[in-house]
């Protein structure tokens, strides 16, 4: 329960963030996805009423219970007399069923959990593109405003609004049975859900936005949703646990990764005292859970790699990391995995051998490729290193990276001059 006194002014925004999406989930779970706008109206009305009443009469003793009572009454009102309901829903509801709906407006903790789980599966619909799914998840599951989402994607509100409208239209057309989510449906869609939560987290961790708060919010929301999946026996799979372990390990470094001036701090330069040991321990717990289930996925491998990075920074760890990358690249090719594997290779077999591996990768238009070669050439051939770093600058769109690469070049040039 929230301590009312301490966060007086922030209470409503805080509750909005935590409870708004729950209300929508419960109402959608009851009436179906096609009535999501109605659910949003009821939830918004509830918070509007709270703003009015609380500013006049003060904050009630149990604000959350207050909110759910109002939401429940508003839903009942809609059921009884709303024109929309008469036209759209009542024809499908027989008179005796009206009572069923009335008695099932249920804001208990268990039903909120079930509803949220169902919502996750409804929102992560493969009918929408991955990016659209993430936007929808942010809006419907995490309660982000258009502005928040636009900031996270370095886009403008209008573009995001259009994308969301299209995505919602697609959802409506899919007629996803949110009311009775059956185990087969869950199994069929679980991979899509996991992918979306994985990308949602990455959107925060490797964010395009430099806004530290937004990045943290994205990560913690992704973790909250992944955690929801571990709470249900049907979705508490090895992959889900591995994903949560990965998220715990990664986010344990969130504070160490961004400097006071909001620049990314490279792994080797991070202050390890800033690593969050509680999250590392949680990561260990979920990784063990993940590995006790008979399954091996890219999430298991990525979590294992992330685990080694939380251990002491002796060079021994690379001996264990390289085989994991070798496996990961067999499971799923991606340029970034190919480059990370080559970096790990250099840590085990030295730069020269790694350069030979790197130059076979055929990723000349990837700026990370040139950053990697620049790094590998640095102790061997400064001119070549600088040339690659320059190419990387010309290929990246990120100002932060440009600045960091320029610094590296400057340092290399200074070192050669002083020789």
């Amino acid at each position: 329960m929230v301590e009312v006194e301490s966060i007086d002014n922030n209470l409503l925004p805080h509750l909005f963030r935590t409870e708004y999406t729950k209300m929508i989930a419960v109402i959608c779970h009851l009436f179906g996805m096609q009535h999501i706008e109605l659910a949003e109206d009821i939830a918004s009305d509830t918070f509007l009423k709270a703003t009015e009443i609380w500013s006049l009469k003060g904050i009630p003793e149990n604000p959350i219970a207050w909110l759910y009572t109002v939401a429940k009454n508003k839903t009942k009102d809609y059921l009884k007399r709303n024109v929309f309901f008469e036209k759209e829903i009542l024809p499908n509801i027989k008179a005796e069923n009206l009572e069923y709906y009335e008695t099932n407006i249920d804001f208990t903790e268990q039903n909120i959990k079930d509803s949220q789980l169902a919502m996750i599966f409804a929102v992560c619909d493969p009918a929408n593109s991955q990016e659209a799914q993430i936007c929808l998840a942010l809006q419907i599951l995490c309660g982000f405003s258009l502005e928040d989402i636009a900031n996270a994607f370095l886009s403008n509100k209008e573009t995001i609004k259009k994308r969301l409208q299209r995505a919602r239209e697609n959802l409506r057309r899919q007629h996803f049975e949110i009311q009775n989510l059956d185990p087969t449906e869950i199994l069929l869609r679980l991979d899509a859900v996991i992918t979306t939560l994985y990308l949602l987290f990455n959107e925060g961790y490797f964010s395009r936005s430099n806004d530290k708060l937004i990045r943290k919010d994205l990560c913690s929301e992704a973790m909250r949703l992944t955690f929801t999946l571990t709470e249900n026996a049907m979705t508490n799979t090895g992959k889900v646990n591995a994903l949560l372990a990965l998220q715990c390990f990664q986010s344990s470094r969130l504070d160490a990764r961004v400097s006071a001036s909001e620049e990314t701090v490279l792994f080797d330069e991070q202050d390890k005292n800033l690593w969050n040991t509680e999250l590392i321990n949680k990561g260990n717990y979920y990784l063990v859970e993940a590995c006790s289930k008979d399954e091996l996925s890219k999430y298991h491998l990525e979590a294992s790699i992330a685990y080694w990075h939380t251990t002491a920074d002796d060079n021994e760890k690379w001996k264990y990391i390289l085989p994991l990358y070798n496996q990961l690249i067999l499971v799923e090719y991606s340029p970034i995995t190919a480059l990370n594997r080559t970096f790990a290779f250099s840590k085990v077999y030295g730069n020269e051998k790694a350069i030979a591996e790197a130059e076979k990768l055929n990723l000349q238009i990837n700026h990370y490729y040139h950053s990697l070669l620049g790094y590998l050439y640095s102790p061997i051939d400064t001119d070549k290193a600088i040339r690659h770093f320059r190419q990387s600058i010309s290929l990246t769109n990120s100002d932060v990276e440009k600045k960091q690469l320029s610094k590296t070049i400057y340092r290399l040039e200074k070192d050669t001059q002083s020789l």
Partner: protein
Amino acid sequence: MKEFVFIFRNSDNPNFKPSPEQMQQVMTSWTNWMGGIAAQNKLVSNGNRLSMSIAKTIKPNNVITDGPYTEIKEFINGYTIVKAANIKEAVELAKDCPILKMGGNVEVRAIVTPDDNS
């Protein structure tokens, strides 16, 4: 891109009993080699290793013999499928195969597709 099968051959050496360290080293060099091909996005399938002990050869007239080999000492012990622009590039990939350092060899064969007339 065309697909090629790498067929790994080795000779039977009953006296070869590798130590656990040697086994580990062999494993590492194989995963590094395969990982290197996969990192170039040229691996189609890991393929499989083939058993030497559980093996029979079936011949006409219900003649069944032990093992994959009767006349030759060399036997196939596995295969992997890669993709490459041409056979030259495929041969380049095969040149680093760890089996070459263990007295074996790699046969590179293009997979025949319906478009091929050869």
